[in-house]
């Protein structure tokens, strides 16, 4: 009995593979998109477990370490001995003899090795599980661990960036989810029924897209009552952001509906007397779901950037909520940036996440139509 060659097997697998399997294969060919997906998975994983990953409580402050520069990781100590486990030096306040201002400098007499699963500030994971183990940290009661420096109140920037990630990353998802609901309903009506409904919805979309977004958002955000709790402000901001965000998704949905309406299999379903909802949900939605996922991925970075911009201007989320935009507020003027450039670090994370989403969305878009080759 002749054995099948490797190539034949591959060919057979190709013929019998499901649509999603084909898309996955296509997607994995786009290396940058796969790397981006890994980056995003890590970022969302960190955001999910931020209490555990962050070395400190984001609100713990110490007036002695105001604007402390980032600690350097050392492997070689003063005596020239090599340590496999990196360590950091402690900090001390010193008066700068030139400017006569107090500055925080490393104190080389105290060394702190960095430990995995070190005990530190107590926290409650998801508000449920009390613990005091952190992914990494230093063992010291009197010394805080500033890998990314400290802010103007002496809080740990790294911990705040990690906690801020939870808000900034989730606001993108929640906002896009809201936009998706509006987009599917309105775009679906527009594309499936056509006629007057289509005309009105298209005009509304054109109108919203021709407005300058930031001034409009600012106006809407300023109308949120200042008495609202943080969580209500959070949802208020996501609703404001999806106010314009839905238009893009509605266009995608409408375009797909219009194209699919003419397809033979829809006509067949209609002739078989399938009810309208069944045609939409069973036949139409699965065939454009992949396109929709790609468009969704591509619209998340816009949401994240918008939230960052609004919060940066002081009209989005407000402290004590920590988001990347809120953190960047302290870097708003040139003087603080020159004095403490590490305050710009939250911006680096915005850029990484936004680029990763863009690359992954590009890969998904290419993979969305695996039969197109």
């Amino acid at each position, binding site marked *: 009995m002749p054995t099948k060659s490797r190539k034949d097997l591959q060919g057979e697998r190709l013929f019998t593979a499901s649509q999603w399997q084909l898309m996955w294969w296509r997607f994995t060919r786009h290396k940058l998109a796969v790397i981006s997906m890994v980056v995003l998975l890590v970022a969302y994983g960190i955001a999910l477990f931020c209490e555990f990953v962050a070395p400190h409580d984001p609100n713990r402050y110490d007036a002695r370490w105001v604007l402390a520069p980032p600690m350097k990781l050392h492997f070689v100590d003063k005596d020239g001995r090599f340590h496999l486990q990196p360590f950091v030096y402690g900090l001390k306040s010193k008066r700068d003899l030139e400017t006569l201002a107090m500055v925080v400098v490393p104190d080389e007499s105290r060394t702190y090795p960095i430990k995995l699963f070190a005990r530190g500030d107590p926290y409650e994971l998801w508000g449920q599980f009390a613990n005091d183990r952190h992914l990494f940290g230093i063992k010291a009661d009197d010394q805080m661990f500033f890998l990314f420096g400290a802010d103007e109140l002496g809080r740990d920037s790294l911990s705040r960036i990690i906690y801020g990630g939870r808000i900034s990353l989730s606001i993108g998802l929640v906002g896009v989810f809201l936009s998706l609901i509006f987009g599917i309903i309105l775009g679906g009506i527009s594309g499936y029924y056509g006629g007057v409904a289509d005309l009105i919805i298209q005009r509304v979309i054109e109108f919203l897209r021709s407005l300058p977004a930031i001034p409009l958002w600012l106006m809407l955000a300023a109308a949120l009552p200042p008495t609202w709790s943080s969580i209500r402000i959070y949802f208020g901001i996501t609703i404001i952001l999806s106010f314009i965000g839905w238009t893009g998704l509605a266009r995608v949905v409408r375009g797909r509906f219009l194209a699919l309406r003419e397809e033979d299999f829809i006509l067949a379903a209609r002739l078989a007397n399938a009810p309208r909802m069944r045609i939409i949900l069973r036949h139409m939605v699965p065939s454009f779901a992949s396109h929709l996922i790609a468009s969704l991925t591509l619209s998340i970075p816009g949401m994240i950037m918008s939230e960052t911009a609004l919060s*940066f201007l002081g009209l989005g989320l407000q402290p004590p909520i920590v988001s990347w935009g809120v953190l960047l507020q302290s870097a708003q003027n040139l003087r603080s940036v020159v004095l403490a450039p590490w305050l710009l670090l939250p911006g680096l994370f915005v850029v990484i996440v936004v680029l990763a989403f863009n690359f992954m969305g590009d890969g998904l878009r290419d993979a969305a139509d695996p039969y197109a080759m």
Partner: protein
Amino acid sequence: MLRYILQRILLFIPTVFVISVVTFTLIQLPPGDYITVYAAQLEASGQEVSEQLLTALRGRYGLDQPITIQYAKWIGNIVLYGDFGQSMQWNRPVADLIWERLWWTIALSLGTLIFTWIVAFPIGIYSATHQYSVADYVFTFIGFFGQGVPDFLLALVLMWLGYSWFGVEVGGLFSAAYKDAPWSLAKFADLLRHLWVPVVVLGIAGTAGLIRTMRANLLDELRKPYVVTARAKGMKERALVWKYPVRVALNPFISGLAYVLPGLVSGATIISVVLSLPTTGPMMLRALMSQDMYLAGSFLLLLSTLTVLGTLVSDILLAWVDPRIRLG
């Protein structure tokens, strides 16, 4: 053609009407009317607030009347007398405050638009005609980067680098020496020296997008049979590219006006806050912070009207350039 233009202009009027209604609603949204806030402010500064003054003020803005009458009064004053109401924060008519800043916003947005065109045009053509060359990859990378970096962050980083490397403060539009000086050539040169930072920061995202569209369009066009035919007939490559495909692929430059302009005006708002430019952005932000809703609302009204006007102009231009649109 004329019919198309008339149609578009007729559509413009209800659009501006909707903008004004939206703006008015937003002005009314915060709790308490403008007079209550004003009275509280006067009291806080130790001045006596007479009931008479408040009633007079309420009457002037029609605050004692139903909301539709209030709207009619507000928009009527704007259209007929150019009266946008009173700014509480500045204690001056809004109309006195906004125009100069509005001109700066328009100048900055248009300047950036021109920059975007000048940069994107040659790069787009080069990227398409030299697809997958090293330069094409470089431009693609810059394009992705430009779209991925929030513009205000770019402004902050440029300011920081400018200060710590070259010791120059890149904020503002003029050096201190020229700030209050009358217009002269030297002052204009000084303006140009400062203007490039906001223009580059603001333009990079739009430029990146435009290059991508220009490249994609031109690539589609270059693969069409008529190009092959012309090449087979021995037409010079340069003449071939410039004479036909480029002209067809040029559409996004004009239609882009409609997409790019709202983004530019929107981006200019936040850039101006970071770089402290005398445009509408910082003033609108301050107005919103102190709940000076008439001032903020006027900015929203005018900026939105301007972008919609830009869309109108781009639609007409596009119809003029591309017959498929006015006949379709």
